[in-house]
């Protein structure tokens, strides 16, 4: 992909975030929210966290079909913990996230279906490395002291997004399946919080 296409893809991602959110959206608390990706290398589970995320959530328990969320993920902030700097550097390279061309990923949710109790099935899109794919996430919503907490996970296939190309394509070394887990903490007040 040429550079101008990259810019358009990124701009489209930002535009998508801006357009899908009504004014009542509440920002997540980035310090209490988390987004992790767990993958398997040689069948060893390895978890990394995206340290810089931001986003907004609109959710009304009475109208889950109107739920909206937009999450902006700084891909260069992927961290596998202390002492794994060579890993982190590797994930920014061209074969992986290619963060110079694709610095951010966006994860949007448009509509959720109640599964009973606090559980919902949210439908959305993940825009990553210039590709946009539909996805389904299972989400549990809880109301805690002054905040709403949305916890969920979604399985994705890294190769569908071109994450880990070239010599890294071999799924027997790094498995294709990656589980993305999120915990979004939304302070009450700014948004329509259901009782």
């Amino acid at each position, binding site marked *: 992909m040429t550079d101008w296409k990259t810019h358009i893809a990124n701009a489209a991602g930002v535009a998508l975030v801006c357009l899908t959110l009504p004014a009542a959206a509440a920002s997540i608390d980035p310090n209490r929210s988390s987004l992790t990706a767990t993958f398997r*290398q*040689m069948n060893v589970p*390895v978890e990394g966290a995206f340290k810089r995320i931001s986003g907004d959530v609109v959710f009304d328990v009475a109208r889950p079909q109107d739920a909206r969320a937009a999450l902006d993920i700084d891909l260069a902030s992927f961290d596998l*913990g202390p002492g794994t700097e060579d890993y982190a550097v590797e994930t920014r390279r061209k074969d992986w996230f290619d963060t110079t061309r694709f610095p951010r990923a966006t994860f949007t949710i448009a509509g959720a279906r109640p599964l009973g109790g606090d559980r919902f099935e949210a439908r959305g899109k993940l825009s990553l490395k210039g590709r946009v794919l539909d996805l389904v996430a299972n989400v549990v919503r809880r109301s805690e002291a002054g905040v709403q907490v949305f916890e969920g996970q979604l399985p994705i296939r890294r190769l569908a997004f071109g994450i880990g190309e070239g*010599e890294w394509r071999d799924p027997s*070394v*790094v498995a294709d399946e990656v589980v993305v887990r999120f915990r979004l903490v939304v302070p009450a007040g700014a948004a329509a919080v259901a009782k």
Partner: protein
Amino acid sequence: MLVAGAWFVGHWMTDLSFSPLKLKVYSWHKWTGVLVFALLIVRVGVRIAARLSPRIAAPIHSDNRIAWGTHLLLYGLLALVPLSGWLFSSAAGFTTVWFGLWPIPDLVPKDAQLKDLFRAVHDTLTSVLAALVVLHLFAALKHHFIDRDRVLVRMVPGLKPRKPPDHPG
């Protein structure tokens, strides 16, 4: 052979640039360590069951006490080197999954300081073990070619004892 293999691979793999090969080799190294540890448990079990079979103590040499000491050290290090590697891997946050099939429980939680500590311990013990393995090798050869006794013959299946010298002394 396993110990020598793990030793050479261990020295080679840390210099590899980040690649799928590196990840594979690290796993193979860990699997080998677990295998050595498992075989050691079997070996110690057999020796206890055999009550240190009398033939092991049979050849009375002046260096018997040294041999006994180095063997004890060898056994100790054969346990401690894989164990420190296991601790190192646990502290680094990488569970060892034996042959990619059986996860071995982490001994300690992920911790950068512990990781550095166990790495140093693993490196040091490995160097001592390597020195002892070389000593063991030369001692076995000495028994075979100089003492011309059955020590190496007992260890190597199919090996015939060397003829004793015709005119001793």
